[in-house]
């Protein structure tokens, strides 16, 4: 009896330590965004002054909108292209398929610093240059392999007889895909989309290489701001983003049970 209790207690402690490790820095930052002192000084005094200041910081706000826009467009493009590619790889046999599949995954392992440098040189060479469009292209390229990996994993659990059954009942290719295959892989598509969003929204290295002073994303802008001198507005904008993205994640987890049977 006693040992089970101790074990149970240890288990709980472990979970709390783990959560503390994950969330403590974030919670402190969120608290400090409401503290009067810009230098993390205690005692804690409540203020929303930094949020008001943030509202007037046009550079930070425009960079935030850039980030959101690019992340959403990246998510849409890479989810659609990646899911379509996964379906093609699942359904068809063609020459060079194995090579193509093998080549899809190394980009995940290549350091972003190197990918970023390569993209900068390449985009310069072909005349795309730097800016928001270049950043978008770069993000889509980074996110695609993640989508393909996640959607392909989900497709592995799909029974090919379901497509055959649908065809035997007179369904054309589009009806088979939209009414039988897509509903089954949807949790994978959503998960892949979340990955794509995260890859783009969190992206610093590649964005840093491809941005110009006027056309930049939030992580790059935050980095530039910190170099000029730290202000609690950074805490404020970070807190807003954490709250919004956590809400997004929890909502998605609520409506889609990843991997499991629906």
């Amino acid at each position, binding site marked *: 009896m006693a040992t089970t209790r101790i074990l149970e207690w240890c288990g709980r402690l472990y979970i709390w330590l783990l959560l503390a490790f994950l969330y403590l820095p974030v919670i402190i930052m969120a608290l400090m965004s409401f503290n009067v002192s810009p230098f993390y000084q205690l005692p804690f005094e409540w203020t929303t002054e930094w949020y008001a200041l943030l509202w007037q910081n046009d550079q930070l706000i425009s960079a935030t909108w850039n980030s959101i826009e690019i992340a959403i467009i990246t998510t849409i493009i890479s989810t659609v292209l990646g899911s379509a590619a996964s379906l093609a790889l699942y359904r068809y046999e063609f020459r060079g398929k194995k090579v193509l599949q093998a080549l899809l995954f190394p980009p995940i392992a290549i350091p972003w610093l190197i990918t970023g440098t390569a993209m900068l040189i390449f985009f310069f060479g072909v005349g795309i240059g730097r800016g928001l469009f270049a950043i978008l292209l770069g993000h889509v390229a980074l996110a695609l392999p993640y989508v393909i990996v996640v959607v392909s994993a989900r497709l592995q659990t799909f*029974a090919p*007889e*379901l497509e*055959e*059954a*649908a*065809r*035997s*009942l*007179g*369904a*054309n290719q589009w*009806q088979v895909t939209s*009414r*039988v295959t897509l*509903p*089954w892989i949807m949790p994978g598509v959503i998960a892949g989309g979340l990955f794509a969003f995260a890859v783009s929204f969190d992206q610093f290295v590649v964005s840093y290489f491809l941005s110009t002073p006027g056309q930049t994303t939030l992580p790059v802008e935050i980095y530039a701001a910190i170099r000029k001198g730290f202000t609690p507005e950074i805490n404020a904008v970070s807190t807003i983003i954490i709250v919004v993205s956590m809400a997004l994640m929890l909502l998605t987890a609520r409506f889609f049970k990843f991997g499991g*049977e*629906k």
Partner: protein
Amino acid sequence: MAGVQVSNLSRSFGAHKALDDVSIDFADGGFYALLGPSGSGKTTLLRQIAGFDFPDSGRIAIGGESVERVPVEKRRIGMVFQNYALFPNMSVGDNVAFGLSVRGEAKATIANEVQRALDLVQLGKLGGRRPHQLSGGQRQRVALARAIVTKPRVLLLDEPLGALDKALRVDMQIELKRIQREIGITTIFVTHDQEEALTMSDRIGILRDGRLVQEGPPEEIYDRPKSEFAATFLGDANIFRGETTGTGIRLPDGTAIAAGAGAALAAGAKASCAVRPERIRIATDSGTSDPNANMLRGQVSKRIFAGNNSTYFVDRGGQTLKVIVQNTGIERLAEGQKVVLRWSPESTVLIAGS
């Protein structure tokens, strides 16, 4: 409804000949079993008729219309898969409605037809359930309802009862047969279960290594097998090998066995005779019965008691024969007992040697 004609159908996968010049005529409204061991080509043939795969050569006609290059979705067939392949994201009713819905039928028509199909398979009240809430037998019925609701020209079944336990399988055999009779649809049924093939079908086709070995009504194949393979694959058979005498064969030890049926062969050729185990009578004395009967002496080496019948294994100079006896009384033969086996020439089928 329509009959199906398969003519000279061949299909290879690499060097492997999955189907080799197969021709079968499936009559309109008939119940046809394709029987064979795994790798015999029976499923390949079914998938060719369905249209999932196209032949290298040969012709497939449904209702007289050539379809060998028509893809499955345009063939108007109904198919039941081994693992049912119900759509997990749809209710039972939506599963059954799928075929009508992709054809763009009106909602009211679909609802009517779906209810009729579910009533036919006795699942009228379960339309709102999800496939994972059903038992194996119920899923089977949903798959059947889904396949027939579109009024296909032919119903194809790929080992549909393979996943069910034995008692349920017998129920479903009767049920399937009832439904097939009720709607009168041409049905082609792939199985490796010989009992299922015998009890359910009007005709059986036996396949081996991509070729059609024999084809005909169950009684004909059972009573008059044309090859040792057909004799031993559909039911059980004792096989004697020797040389033909014109009316039977002579075994290497000189014993003559008279055959009343089978191939007409020139004397001296290699041939075999097949006898079903239940056609042989077993006795302890030579007695005085039909002088024309085939007779062999041997010794009981083993007896397996199975309630209503017993199987005796009888040794006869290097060959073990199988004899099945109905247990009509309580007298039984002991192991080691010397016995006399007798059977009529009519029960003996002459088969050309290979």
